[in-house]
């Protein structure tokens, strides 16, 4: 019968789809491919619940199809008498109240301990304070031996917990809040998401099993470029991580007169970049990302663009045009100024 076949096809498509999800090669934000303990814990909780749901799904849809086929009115040929006027059946109804309740109790018994397990503070973590801005992420490594500030790309050593504090109470020296609107920090393959809320402090932990680049993005609607507020978690071996920390601790490159980047270095203050961006030892802007080692990152502008001179030039030409709602204004830079600034930025490794 058409009813059954088509509904079967739909069910099949959904099933195949789920399988395909599991096998998809290029789904870098796939929650079903966890690569850290938190995400795996969640996955281990979700998958059995999914299968329980799948059984109930098959049961209900199967019964529907059987009933539709078996009891359908065959018109003239149908010689069945009128149906029995059945008003209910206490035992059955009791049964299908209690059985789901028991199943749900089992699910609850698995869920509640996991909630507390995931909320537990890790031992000996790397502490990172994350602040969401429209539309980029700021990371402050608060451990005294690290003390690094960077943006969009979170570096982390493999096998060690990163304890993230999403601090919405931080204030700038003038007393205004660092945080603007609500953002939500999410690296699907490492953990679920946690909101960063102005005026509140939230925590989450991240840990990667193997080195790699784990993509994520903001998941709370935060304005025009919510879609463009992306991020990367870069998990490295401890040695690589230490090397990265050392790089980040180096003072910023300072071009000297005669360097090709020197003109850009001067433009950086004269065209207003310095008003918003910090370059350690040079400027102290508090609005945009810290650029001290910007060119050591693989991407910029909320991990929207890969880092390259061409992309930087494109960006500087008209930031809000590239990323709607960007708080970096169009400074109407000339092509010459842009190439000088890019030359300077390239030195900030």
């Amino acid at each position, binding site marked *: 019968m058409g009813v059954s076949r088509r509904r079967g096809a739909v069910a099949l498509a959904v099933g195949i789809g789920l399988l395909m999800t599991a096998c998809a090669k290029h789904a870098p934000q796939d929650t079903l491919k966890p690569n850290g303990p938190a995400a795996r814990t969640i996955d281990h909780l979700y998958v059995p619940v999914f299968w329980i749901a799948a059984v109930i799904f098959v049961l209900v849809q199967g019964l529907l199809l059987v*009933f539709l086929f078996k009891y359908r009115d065959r018109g003239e040929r149908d010689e069945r008498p009128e149906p029995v006027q*059945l008003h*209910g059946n206490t035992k059955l109804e009791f049964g299908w109240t209690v059985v789901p309740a028991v199943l749900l109790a089992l699910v609850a018994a698995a869920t509640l301990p996991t909630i507390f397990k995931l909320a537990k503070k890790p031992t000996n973590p790397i502490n990172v304070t994350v602040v969401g801005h429209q539309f980029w992420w700021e990371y402050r490594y608060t451990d005294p031996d690290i003390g690094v500030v960077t943006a969009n790309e979170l570096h982390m050593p493999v096998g060690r917990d990163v304890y993230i504090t999403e601090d919405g109470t931080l204030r700038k020296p003038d007393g205004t809040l660092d945080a603007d609107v609500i953002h939500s920090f999410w690296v699907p393959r490492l953990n679920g998401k946690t909101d960063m809320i102005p*005026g509140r402090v939230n925590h989450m932990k991240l840990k990667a099993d193997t080195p790699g680049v784990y993509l994520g993005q903001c998941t709370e609607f935060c304005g025009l470029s919510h879609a463009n507020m992306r991020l990367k978690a870069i998990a490295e071996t401890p040695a690589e991580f230490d090397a990265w920390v050392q790089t980040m601790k180096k003072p910023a490159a300072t071009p000297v007169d005669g360097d090709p980047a020197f003109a850009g270095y001067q433009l950086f203050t004269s065209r207003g970049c310095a008003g918003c961006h910090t370059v350690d030892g040079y400027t102290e802007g508090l609005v945009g990302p810290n650029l001290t080692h910007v060119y050591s990152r693989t991407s910029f502008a909320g991990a929207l663009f890969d880092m390259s001179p061409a992309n930087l030039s494109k960006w500087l030409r008209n930031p809000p045009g590239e990323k709607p709602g960007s708080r970096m204004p169009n400074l109407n830079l000339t092509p010459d100024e842009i190439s000088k600034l890019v030359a300077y930025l390239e030195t900030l490794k």
Partner: protein
Amino acid sequence: MTEPIAYGQTPPLTARRSLLRRPTSTAGLWGWITTVDHKRIGIMYGVSAFVFFLLGGIEALLLRLQLGGPNQHVLSASAYNQVFTMHGTTMIFLVIMPMAAAFANYLVPIMIGARDVAFPRLNAFGFWTFLAGGLFMYSSFLLGGAPNGGWFGYVPQTLKAYSPGHNIDFWVFGLQILGIASLTGAINLIVTIINMRAPGMSFMRMPIFVWMSLVAQFLLLFALPVITVALFLLMFDRQFGGHFFDAQAGADPLLWQHLFWIFGHPEVYILILPAMGIVSEVLPVYARKPLFGYAVKVFSGIAIGFMGWGVWAHHMFATGLGPVAISAFGLSTMFIAVPTGVKIFNWLGTLWGGKLRITTPFLFAVGFVAMFTIGGLSGVTHAVVPADTQQTDTYYIVAHFHYVMFGGSIFGLFAGVYYWAPKVTGKMLSDFLGKIHFWLMLVGFNLTFGPMHILGLQGQPRRIYTYPAGRGWEFWNLVSTIGAFTIAASIVVFIVNVIRTKISDQPNVGADPWDARTLEWTIPSPPPEYNFAEEPLVTARDELWHRKYDEDGDGRAIRRELDYPVVMDEVPDEVHVHMPSPSYWPLVASFTLPAVAYGMIYRAWPVAIAAGVVEITALYSWALEPSTAPPDPDEGTEDHGPELDSGEPAAAELETADAD
């Protein structure tokens, strides 16, 4: 100022003085505009909601076009945010809620054997206020931009600092106006159901649709004040420099989320319960069996209504409420699945052993059960809190609630449209086109929203206007977009069906074309203005069925041999029932509200104040106007018999003034 007329007294004709001459005719366009007839109001609710459904649908198609592939440029980021906000707001507040109101308005009185609702003019006011609110909100597209903060309007994003335009103001005031409409409607229907039932129509004999509507109206009654407060606080922050959501001043932005979802979660049940009621009416008729476990159905509906108040924070599992609070809300969310599951199994029980006539309304009702089950199951996975932190704010959620709101509510509402269309119009919609509509919609629906589960699990967030290639999302997004256009095609089939039926000259279907079970099928199609020429006496649940059928020893239905009709196929002559008279005041009171709102948004205080004065005048005139006008002198003065007067004293009317 007009003079009040005591109950039961015929006012002297000369005493009538009014600012507006009272409308007397019920014919023509003005007849519709000034009507207080619950059936006409129901039809107007339905038609308006359908127009908004088309608008919301066009918005959905735009969204799907934009997301059909990576890096598309159909909509700008700004346009996308407006369109997705308006899509959600429209479908919830301007489509499903008023569609449910349409059914409740039209059907509740005729299902309980009443001649009208308790407060007919308040009913008209509710409808016009809804329409005024909807038009007001849509006028924002022409006035500088539609709301763009999402249907959930989270602060601080929606504060002046981050949304400086008037977009959000239209949303705030628009929802406030719609809230007034819903609150008056809720009170009206609650009183109607409690107090206007025909003799013998005890609560446990009420049709299940009436029950589910009653629960939904109670949820509205208690949920609306909470969103009212939330919107007022937001208005004070935006218009008058309040600090309710200003973290800088020490406020907690989560206050908004709590208030919004304390309203918003009961709202979900407000949207689904009427559709559940419709499905519970439709399945028994075509299964030729009573609803399986009526009492359990009723109590599970009530249980859902109550439990719906204890689960709101499951929308906030990622906000950092702490493990204790989220455990509690996770538990409550799991256990609300129990009464919901009971409903699904009882529908299966209704089909079991029946003689199923596979008609269009039946298919839509079965489609509801099938699709809603999927939505319910994915809902359980959200109650698994850690899993929800992966799912929330992704397309998995979008998939989930569309299986509930579309696969559930919309399928249920279409079941109702096909089922009751012959009662409302006297004509039968084409079953053939109806089935094409159903299959296109079912396939399109699953193509659109099925893949969204996968997309969500693959990490595609909601509310993004664009996404890059290489995330693995291209294929399923394309499928989803194709599905959306399939749904659109099914709607075209529906419109063709309606128009064809409208212009066809098929004979009147009579009172009871489906061999149905409830009171509304005992009266002519379409029913006369007074519904019941004689007040029905109810002796059983499924009253009409029991008039037609007896049960043999095995409990099988056998048709009674009767020498008198049990239904009234044609409107009898010579029935004089004095119905409430039409009135202008509800209309004036409704359309003054947007004027107040425009005045406040644009800080044109004289406009706001003038509109406020008109509003108060309208409410006063309304309060002092008797619900039934004196007979028109030109019409002769034959005895109209006892009136069906639904007098609304001054006090009750003035209440509407502060119901906002």
